[in-house]
């Protein structure tokens, strides 16, 4: 175990008590169909089964895991299946919020890079652009509405805004970092859900297979 304190992020461990007297062979035979999936290779010895998955199918019941070890151990109470599974998907989802936080910073940096400067020439250029926009808005406002739209009661186009009040022009709104922050939050929630859900799903899958007749 290389990173015992943090490997729970991408690794799932668990154990299941087998039926009294159930042999390793019988338990692995019941689990075997799970490893007969495209992109899956497995190696089975007396009491251990190891598997690897590559490009696993979306509907593979174990698609979230890329490798793992299943071992049957003898306990005082009877045989136990212990499993130790590794998931790159869980690790990716855990790291995804960081990626989106970086994207938020990139958005801020790019917006700053393209922001108009504070020199007199820059201010003049910005004033010219604003005047040009105002002129375009006024031209637009002068175009009469089509009679069909008037008859159907469509709202008239909004009046051009006074100079200095065009910051509400949402159609030309710059990209903001807020979106990236929202996605960082979404992936944080998805990780928590996935870490709990996939742990339960795999446990229940193994349990069902081991109990199946």
């Amino acid at each position: 175990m290389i990173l015992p304190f943090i490997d729970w992020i991408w690794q799932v461990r668990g154990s299941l008590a087998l039926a009294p007297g159930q042999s390793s062979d019988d338990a692995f035979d019941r689990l075997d169909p799970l490893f007969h999936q495209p992109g899956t290779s497995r190696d089975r010895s007396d009491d251990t089964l190891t598997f690897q998955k590559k490009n696993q199918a979306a509907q593979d019941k174990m698609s979230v895991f890329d490798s793992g070890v299943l071992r049957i151990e003898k306990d005082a109470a009877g045989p136990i299946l212990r499993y130790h599974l590794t998931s790159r998907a869980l690790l990716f989802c855990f790291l995804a919020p960081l990626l989106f936080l970086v994207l938020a910073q990139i958005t801020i940096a790019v917006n700053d890079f393209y922001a108009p400067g504070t020199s007199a020439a820059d201010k003049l250029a910005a004033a010219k652009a604003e005047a040009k926009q105002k002129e375009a808005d006024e031209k637009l406002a002068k175009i009469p509405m089509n009679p069909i739209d008037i008859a159907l009661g469509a709202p008239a186009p909004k009046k051009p805004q006074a100079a200095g009040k065009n910051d509400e022009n949402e159609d030309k709104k710059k990209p903001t970092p807020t979106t990236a922050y929202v996605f960082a939050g979404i992936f944080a929630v998805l990780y928590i859900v996935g870490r709990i859900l996939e742990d339960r799903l795999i446990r229940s899958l193994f349990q069902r297979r081991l109990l199946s007749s």
Partner: protein
Amino acid sequence: MDGIRVGDRVIGTQAPVIVGWDNIPKVEGGPVKRFIFTWFQPAMLVAFVLFWYYAPNSIAKASTGIGIGIGFRAVLLALEWVNPRYESWQLTWKELVTDLFFVGLGYTLINLASYYLGSDAMVEASLNHIGLDHLGWFTTLPLLVQAVLILFIFDFGQYWMHRAMHNWYPLWLPHAAHHYITQFNINKGAVGNPVELFLIGLGIGGLFDFLPRAFLLSGGIGIAISSYDHINVRFNSPRWWRFLFNTTEHHSVHHSQDYEATRSNFAGTFIFIDRMFGTCIDGEAEVLGMEGGRRMSIREQMTYPFAEGWKAIKGRLGSSGGWPSLGGGSQGMEHASHAEPISAQR
């Protein structure tokens, strides 16, 4: 497999494809369920048109459109659980994470690139160059006509861009990653290499976006039609709807594992553009993807065009041959040898 002859092509020789609307399964269940899943799409289209046509200026804003778009997708996601088209396309946690990652890239990185380098920047430069007066006539048309024209012009451009991606290897490379999806879900349209998503987003529709309401109306209509392209919901779409608009059935044919079938249904919104140019196939497929349905990881999605492009360039430098056959690069579909030098696919 024998396949089915459609015009001068034989569809479904390599993977199962249902051809013909009468052969597609229908919505199962009681009359209420059948009624809902027959009229949901037209009802939502009418609702979107009415909203964007009559909403007061204080509400008819781009931010409202983004909010409605997200809400609508959430509703469609719920419908995938209620009435899935195929159980084999069921959404899993891993698929959701993958899809939302690409959706997130679309809303952040690609949006940023589009704003400063793509359509938005080009449109602004074009308008500055040609001036508003040259296109002013457009704004005297009825709003609905403007909106449909904007949408048609954009989709027409996208049709040819998409078709070119299936015809010319350098453009196929960024697009190929999108064809490795092995199932449909509402967000699968966002899955693909970011370079492709940036390219496919290029269009001249924005050239007319100086009249905000018409632009917003066209966006609303577009969402009400093309949101279903990658959905896993069984609908009984009315005959007129499937004649005019792209549907998940059409698009599943385009994504099937049958090479000839993938060379059809290129339009994103108006399937009648495909009908105009003889590339429409009415039908449906369940088995999707490339290389026999190999699921591509996110890392490979990101690197595929560059890795395969590098291999192709080295191949060209090392021989007198042209680009590799279309259909998936050096690891392409088994039937890549069937590719015509210049023909179509998305």
